[in-house]
């Protein structure tokens, strides 16, 4: 962060004993808080490798005989291989399609002036304010009429366009100098070439941010997949996880193993893309 140098030098300038002990207190508080925040993740993992974990036995900080048999149960007795594949497939398709629809729309709103564009853009943005819950009943009826209930396509269609993605990419395209477009236009490039060869390469960080967000929202989505994907072989991780909790009310090692399987890929993505995720969240709060 860009202020780090400033605070660093400021604190080293006045390293009085009082300031030093204050800094120690601050460190201890921040680290203790972070450990408390992390504990539920750790506990989830520990429970998942504790055979027979349940309400009837006292919690053990480390299992006497740790084992991965709960994971085996997930992938042999339960269709979790299929479930993970479903989640992964839906998230990948959603991400690719959202990147395409967001980038093209963002280009139009930044570079293709037409009458009424401001109004159209305002309508696009207004769709962000509409809660999914309002749409559930008519969407259910609509997809039923199309014969798309219980299909991957039915789960995917409503995620194809994202007003948030369009807004994010439009902000990025507005930052690309127009002189670049003009130079390309003079060389005879049309809008399609300006879009693919000038604009897209110049907004890579915003595309990365959107990739992470689109993937994350699809991977974690619950309400719509719950409504549209009713047959067990089509279920995604959050739904299978909710179902697991109902069926294995006593076998908490299995339920927690399911949680680990659902959390781990996001954790990995987060470690690689932390910069883009935090940037995306931070930029949503700043105009």
């Amino acid at each position: 962060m860009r202020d780090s140098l400033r605070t660093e030098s400021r604190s080293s300038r006045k390293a009085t004993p009082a300031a030093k002990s204050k800094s120690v207190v601050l460190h201890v508080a921040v680290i203790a808080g972070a450990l408390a925040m992390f504990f539920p993740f750790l506990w989830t993992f520990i429970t998942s490798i504790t055979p027979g974990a349940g309400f009837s036995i006292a919690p053990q900080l480390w299992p006497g005989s740790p084992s991965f048999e709960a994971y085996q149960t997930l992938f042999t007795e339960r269709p979790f291989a299929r479930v993970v594949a479903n989640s992964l497939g839906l998230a990948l398709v959603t991400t690719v399609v959202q990147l395409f629809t967001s980038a093209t729309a963002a280009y139009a709103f930044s570079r293709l002036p037409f009458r009424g564009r401001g109004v159209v853009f305002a309508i696009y943005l207004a769709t962000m304010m509409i809660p999914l819950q309002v749409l559930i009943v008519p969407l259910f009826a609509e997809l039923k009429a199309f014969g798309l209930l219980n299909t991957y396509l039915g789960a995917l269609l409503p995620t194809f366009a994202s007003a948030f993605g369009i807004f994010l990419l439009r902000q990025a395209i507005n930052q690309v100098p127009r002189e670049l477009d003009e130079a390309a236009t003079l060389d005879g490039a049309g809008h399609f070439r300006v879009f693919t060869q000038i604009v897209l390469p110049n907004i890579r960080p915003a595309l990365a941010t959107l990739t992470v967000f689109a993937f994350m929202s699809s991977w974690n989505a619950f309400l719509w997949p719950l409504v549209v994907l009713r047959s067990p072989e089509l279920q995604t991780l959050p739904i299978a996880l909710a179902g697991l909790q109902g069926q294995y009310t006593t076998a908490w090692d299995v339920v927690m193993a399911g949680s680990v399987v659902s959390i781990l890929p996001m954790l990995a993505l987060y470690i690689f893309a932390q910069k883009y995720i935090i940037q995306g969240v931070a930029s949503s709060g700043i105009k």
Partner: protein
Amino acid sequence: MALSTVGITPAETITTPQAGGVRRRRTSAGYVLTVCAFLLPSAIPLALFVLGPMIAAAWISFTEWNLITPMEFIGWANYQSLLADERTGEVFLHTLQYIAGYLPLVYIGGLALALALNRALKGRSLWRGIYFLPVVTSWIAVAIVWRWLLNPNNGVVNVALGWFGIDGPGWWTDPDWAMVSIILASAWKDLGFVMVILLAGLQSINPDLYDAAKVDGAGPWSRLKNVTIPMLSPSTFFVVVISLINGFQVFDQVYAMTGGGPGGSTQVVVQQIYDLTFRYGAAGEASALSWLLFIVILAVTVIQIIGQKKWVHYA
């Protein structure tokens, strides 16, 4: 997100055509085709799966419908029966209880974290990363993990409380504590989100303001009160607006932690919409309730946007 959209001026959204050549092409058929090619991929899904259903929901809310047999137009009857039904007041009350517990917790916690992590700390980005971790996990996983942590029989939280001689409550199994359990899990999940928004706000404060306050003899507390808090008000405003919008729509964690129970003590508005549609086959009434919810959210948001002039300072 919605908020940043509010601040856009028309001048910003309408770019002036750069050259005469462009203006000429604007009217040509080729240009119209180009605009369509770029806009239709997003316009079609938005129209079919957001705007269309939105209008359809308004229509359905005036019908009696169980999703199977044909709809029957019944006028305002759904709205009348919702307003007469005491459960409607209850589900809104439970939702407000959730917001009243969640918002102060997540804001004060997020602010404390943002202030702490804005200072020179060893391993700062690691700690920041850990606090943000729950934000990227799914609500269902979080709800299930917290059900496990907070279970009254041998749950790790109650066992830990026992070490201090405290007899832990029944958490999600007790009607008096079930909402508290949901609030705790939600605050844990969203703390990092609020922290990042407020951190970004803190870093956009002009450091000269602090130096000026110091010259004027302001102590740390006075600087927090007179510089940080007012200068942070746009970020605070954003957090409050977003948290209220999301708070009124609370569902995933309720569904997975309590399903609205025990004894209906955590039945929130969206859970009620879901149950009306898929459990009681009352899709018309569910649509009416979802429109009521939307109107409430819209009103609350508009009131905040009007009210912000009184307390939000834009630099």
